[in-house]
């Protein structure tokens, strides 16, 4: 929601704008700081710690104790948090507690995978959703509209892992068109990578498509009830042009917001798709690290997710402003 930036009346100039953006970024930093504290508390509150979870059934009280000491888990929580924060502020994300890999290494690759999948899925889903949204708004209450609505509604009505399994059963096992698992490695070419992620991408598209499409449709239909649309019709403008040229630009703000929300989902919410397709993304890393209580990794990936969410919202707000001539061109 663009409320944050729209506070304080209709007109904004460049200076106000910069100030607002800076203010928002400031808020974001505070939010991230609070999140890091919450993550810390959360991980602390989880039963067991890294030592116990790695040693598992093999654990003996004395080995757990020794492990804790090595990991500095025996220090009081606030001391550990402050030392982590100190390093983090200096740009040192630390190392994974479990295998001592620098977190930048560990996360960098996965983050790029996550972003790659999200980007490809978004590139498919967003234009498709908007085009379908426009078409269903244009031909609303026709058979076409109802069919598209029902199909998209059904798509979001299945749990996403189920969609994934159905796609695998059909397109991978039965027809042998695409690989059933999406493993990535360094040597793959872009085409290889794209081919590998066809099924996860398709699953994600189906999951996010309906939401964006319905929102686009609703936003356009909302705009269609305004007097200027009636005016356009009375000027003899064709229906298609009315929807595309007159209605859509005014429906952009809610569309941008729902797209941003879904993009955030594509980055941060795809754990299940990652599990089903064995895709080495950040989500799995986070879940795994939570399970193993690998705090520095949880912190880093949690903060990345939160930043993506906050960043996308900020971008969405800015785009909303850019798309709104009222705010773009003050009196």
């Amino acid at each position, binding site marked *: 929601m663009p409320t944050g930036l729209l506070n*304080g*009346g*209709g007109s904004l100039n460049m200076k106000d704008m910069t100030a607002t953006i800076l203010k928002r970024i400031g808020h974001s930093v505070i939010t991230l700081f609070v999140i890091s504290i919450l993550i810390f508390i959360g991980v602390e509150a989880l039963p067991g710690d890294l030592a116990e979870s790695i040693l598992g059934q093999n654990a003996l009280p004395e080995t757990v104790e020794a492990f804790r000491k090595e990991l500095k888990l025996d220090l009081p929580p606030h001391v550990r948090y402050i030392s982590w924060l100190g390093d983090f502020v200096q740009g040192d994300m630390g190392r994974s507690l479990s295998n001592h890999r620098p977190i930048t290494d560990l996360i960098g690759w996965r983050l790029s995978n996550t972003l790659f999948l999200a980007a490809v899925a978004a590139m498919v889903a967003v234009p498709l959703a908007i085009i379908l949204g426009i078409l269903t708004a244009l031909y609303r209450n026709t058979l076409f509209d109802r069919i598209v609505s029902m199909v998209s509604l059904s798509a979001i009505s299945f749990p996403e892992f189920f969609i994934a399994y159905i796609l695998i059963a059909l397109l991978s096992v039965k027809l042998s068109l695409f690989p059933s698992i999406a493993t990535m490695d360094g040597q793959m070419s872009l085409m290889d990578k794209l081919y590998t992620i066809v099924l996860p991408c398709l699953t994600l598209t189906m999951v996010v498509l309906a939401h964006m499409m319905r929102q686009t449709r609703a936003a356009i239909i909302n705009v269609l*009830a*305004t*007097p*200027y649309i*009636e*005016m*356009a*019709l*009375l*000027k*003899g*403008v*064709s*229906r298609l*042009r009315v929807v595309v*040229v*007159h209605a859509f*630009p*005014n429906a952009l703000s809610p569309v941008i917001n729902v797209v941003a929300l879904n993009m955030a989902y594509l980055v941060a919410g795809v754990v299940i798709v990652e599990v089903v397709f064995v895709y080495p993304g950040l989500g799995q890393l986070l879940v795994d690290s939570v399970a193993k209580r690998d705090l520095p990794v949880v912190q880093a990936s949690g903060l990345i997710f939160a930043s993506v969410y906050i960043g996308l919202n900020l971008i969405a707000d800015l785009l909303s402003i850019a798309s*709104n*001539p*009222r705010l773009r*061109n003050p*009196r």
Partner: protein
Amino acid sequence: MKNILNIKGLTIEGFNDNQWSTIVDGVDLTLARGEVLGLIGESGAGKSTIGLASMGYSRRGCRISSGSILFDGTELCQASDRVKQKIRGTRIAYVAQSAAASFNPAHRLIRQCTETRVRHGQLTAAQAEKEAIENYRRLLLPDPEGIGFRYPHQVSGGQLQRAMVAMAMACKPDIIVFDEPTTALDVTTQIEVLNAIKQITRHLGTAALYITHDLAVVSQLADRIMVLKNGRKVEENQTRKLLDTPGKSYTQKLLSVRSQRPIKKPVQLKQNVILEVNQVSAAYKKKELVLDTIDLTIRRGQTVALVGESGSGKSTLARAITGLLPPLSGEVIFQGNPLGASYRSRDRESLRKMQMIYQMPETALNPKQTIETAIGRPLSFYFGISGREKRKQVLEFLDRIELPASYINRYPGELSGGEKQRVCVARALAAKPELVICDEVTSALDNLVGEEILKLLQNLQNDLGVSYLFITHDLATVRAIADEVVVMLKGKIVEKGPRNKILNSPGHDYTKRLLNSVPKMNPDWLDDLLEKRKNTRSKKAA
């Protein structure tokens, strides 16, 4: 016949509450080339619906159920979308009530003005722009070269309305439908728009349907006037004939609205001051003062009218007095006691003594509460009256505002606008206030209905001795009800004094302009006024 438009037996139905009901009932209408026909009536008369139907258009939820609309030989009732699309904008154009709402906020004005021209393949974009600029110039828009490249929100209401006229005339249509084009404007702005419309129709020789509820306005433009009521034609005649010899009593009533006489009041004694506004300044944003050191006094049993055009700060003053907008400086003194700046800091008793009636009865009443709750709540809230006693008192109030007792269990949605406003009046009075602030209480209502409300308010004042602070932009209202008049402009009071003094011999230029901008029920009024202004201008120049 050489009529460009020929409507016969037009019946239009609307879908409401799961059933079709008639909105327009068998109306016949003809329009000759170059002729201006005024359609007049109150809300619900079906005049806008007829206007749209003449373009072969009906709003969602409406349908043209029978009749024929013959435009220059083409039957629009049966025409295909494509045919209608071709005619609209090029041969019949439309000017909507609110230009601010009817211009697409996402596009520059000129793009919208030239769209029809370009899309119908008549001109290239560059040619069309040139032509549009020419039209702007003709309509006396400021900065005709630049104004088209602004977005709608960057242009003032009156100018937008003229731009919309320019858009309508772009294709030199045979007919322009004007749908209340000046209703949303201030009186001083209205004149310019009326002038523009008059110029255009004369210049192009375009036929026009001019739809309005204001007989004075339409008489300035129309050759003929048709009076409508509840979807039926009441009467139709040449403008001057209609004004001079109205055939039907309904028309007479409409005619009399503008010539409202002051409602009789008992002689006022100089009584003690009830409200004193002392050097109040207020702002929504820190920098821009909306109220600039306002002083105002209201005495018991007196009606003070606060007059000004939109943006003058008169509603803001009401918010400052009630405490909804705590003033930056100055104080509000009620019955000798300074009130807290914010309503939150005021006690229940002082809240009770000052009540407010709003402009829009639709939003002033909670749609989910019955009339009994609406009127009864102040009774139980302030006086702890409940149960049977409360119901009895509510019924008394209903009687007082001249509504049937059966309304007690109704919801606001089941009432008409005027009835709702009556309920609002009753709700305010139920608190037994000393002062009632009336914020444009009649401007959302039809003239006849508004007049009834004014009468009711006056009667109540006579009975109860309450004071009114009456915020309005309508000088007829002022004439009818005010004892004192305060004129506001840009957050400042420019003039105040007894009603007769202000209305008859205004001191300030602005007050003068305001007064002579009010249309008179005389077809020559506009021409005369413009002539006069031209003369003064040239005199000044000389």
